[in-house]
């Protein structure tokens, strides 16, 4: 029973659909050809002359026109529509019938006086290259290095020439350097609410007060005498000699790099690999040399600290 009713329902639905479409379907022997871009329809079906003569001409033509227009409208309605300012508009495709032009296509303009001159002289049009954002700011770093080399002052390393990704330590260092670089050496710079006090501020050398603790002063003077009396040398000769040797090596390699770099620039680039190798060695040397001096990227404060500790 259920099966029957389902079939009935489907059949009824089909009938309804057919009835709905009945009003807009048109039966034709040959399908019409359309050029929707021009809103044209071509009906190539043969016209029944007898029917034409039997009916009144106008009525026959009118029904034919109605059918054809219905088919054209059906075809137009198949195209996408859009809403433009409260009006529904159908987007037409490009026209397909080839129609002759009004005038011949435009000829290319004759070259101007400048264009002719440029052609004669062989001047080519140079396209301005688009500037690309430089993440590593290599240009800035090299520029500063050049300035430093020219003026023989140390390169500012600490975070002033920013790299792509900066760690917290880099940033904090940069902040501290920026703080100190005021006229009063950062003494009156305000701190953010949760910012901790910088650690290296204050006097670098603390002198004892002239009149202080007499007993501690006495003890200190006696200890000093004891050290002066002892046979053990204060200076560790080995350590001193090693340190001196290391410094000498560093200076040598720095000098080599400087010589090599200058040569490379003057003589041009001989070979990529050779130059690259030299560059690498030179770079390391320079980095090492930088360590000795209180310079080099990110090496300044710890280097400085080390030096102070040793002394």
């Amino acid at each position: 029973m259920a099966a029957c009713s389902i079939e009935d329902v489907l059949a009824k639905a089909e009938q309804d659909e057919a009835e709905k479409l009945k009003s807009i379907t048109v039966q034709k022997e040959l399908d019409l050809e359309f050029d929707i871009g021009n809103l044209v329809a071509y009906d190539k079906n043969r016209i029944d002359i007898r029917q034409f003569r039997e009916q009144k001409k106008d009525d026959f033509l009118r029904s034919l026109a109605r059918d054809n227009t219905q088919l054209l409208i059906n075809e137009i309605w198949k195209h996408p529509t859009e809403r433009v300012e409260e009006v529904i508009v159908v987007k037409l495709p490009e026209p397909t019938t080839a129609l002759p032009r009004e005038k011949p296509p435009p000829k290319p303009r004759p070259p101007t006086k400048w264009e002719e001159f440029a052609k004669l002289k062989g001047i080519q049009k140079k396209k301005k290259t688009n500037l690309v954002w430089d993440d590593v700011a290599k240009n800035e770093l090299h520029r500063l290095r050049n300035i430093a080399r020219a003026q023989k002052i140390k390169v500012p390393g600490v975070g002033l020439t920013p790299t792509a990704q900066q760690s917290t330590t880099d940033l904090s260092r940069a902040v501290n350097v920026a703080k100190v670089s005021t006229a009063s050496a950062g003494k009156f710079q305000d701190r953010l609410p949760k910012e901790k006090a910088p650690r290296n501020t204050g006097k670098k050398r603390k002198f004892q007060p002239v009149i202080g603790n007499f007993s501690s002063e006495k003890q200190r003077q006696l200890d000093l005498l004891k050290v002066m009396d002892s046979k053990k040398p204060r200076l560790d000769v080995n350590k001193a000699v090693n340190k001196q040797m290391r410094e000498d090596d560093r200076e040598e390699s720095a000098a080599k790099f400087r010589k090599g770099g200058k040569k490379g620039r003057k003589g041009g680039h001989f070979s990529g690999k050779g130059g690259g190798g030299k560059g690498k060695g030179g770079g390391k040397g320079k980095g090492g040399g930088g360590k000795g001096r209180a310079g080099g990227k990110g090496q300044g404060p710890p280097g400085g600290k080390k030096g102070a500790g040793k002394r």
Partner: protein
Amino acid sequence: LPWAKPKTKRAKRFLDNRASKLTENVKNAMIMKGGNTSMTVTQALKDIYALKKPSAVLYKKKNITRPFEDSTSLEFFSKKTDSSLFLFGSHNKKRPNNLIFGRLFDFHVLDMIELGIEKYNSLSDIKGSKCPEGTKPMLVFAGDAFDHENEHKRLKSLLTDFFRGPVVPSVRLAGLEHVLHFTALEGKIYMRSYRSLLKKSGCRTPRIELEEIGPSFDFILRRTHLASDDLYKTAHKQPKALKPKKKKNISHDTFGTKFGRLHMQKQDLAKLQTRKMKGLRKRRGPAAAAVVAGETSLKSTEVE
């Protein structure tokens, strides 16, 4: 052109508008009368001017020329008004109520087709409200003569050119009101003009009902002057810039699927990242040995 170079920017703009362009303007039509005209012809010219407005000019005075013999004055007028279509109406005993439809290319005559009016109902004869001026009409050509006969084919192209109006990218659905229907039958061409009413049909596409608004003509094909094949071809030459640029790596197959081509560098197939099979990874240490032992014992039990 005999007139001097433009001295003002406005004049320059005006001349540039009339110069040859990549995408051209709407074709203008000039409607003129010959040496002798009848009431039918004058009324017919007025009606067609009404259909073709605003891209048409209607001359009031008579021009004593014969287009089929001498087309110089037509060409002069076309240069003056920048029109590439013309409609010349005349009347004499040999050819009563004659209309010559024509078009020009580069201000020289391309095609001319002479149609005689056998029966005519003007706009004013047919009562009822008319379509607003400037609506883009829908055109329908019926009859197999428009497909088989050479002259009819040219006539079809000429009538499309004449009546199609400006080429637009989109059209208001409610504005599709005007229909011009041409039927070719037994050497005669019947032109009817209707107003289409879009009625509800139960589905999205409306049902069409037509209402004649006129004018209506019964034409008979008389003389023709068709352009030679090579002139016709030259007139159809489109500038290269209008052709859509082809993207090189894209191709379509017969089913309409779009294919693209990617060019890759050479890949080391041994080092390709395929699916990760965690179980097949080598494990280190006692845990590995235990697992292996476990697996082997399992296998042995399965075998048993």
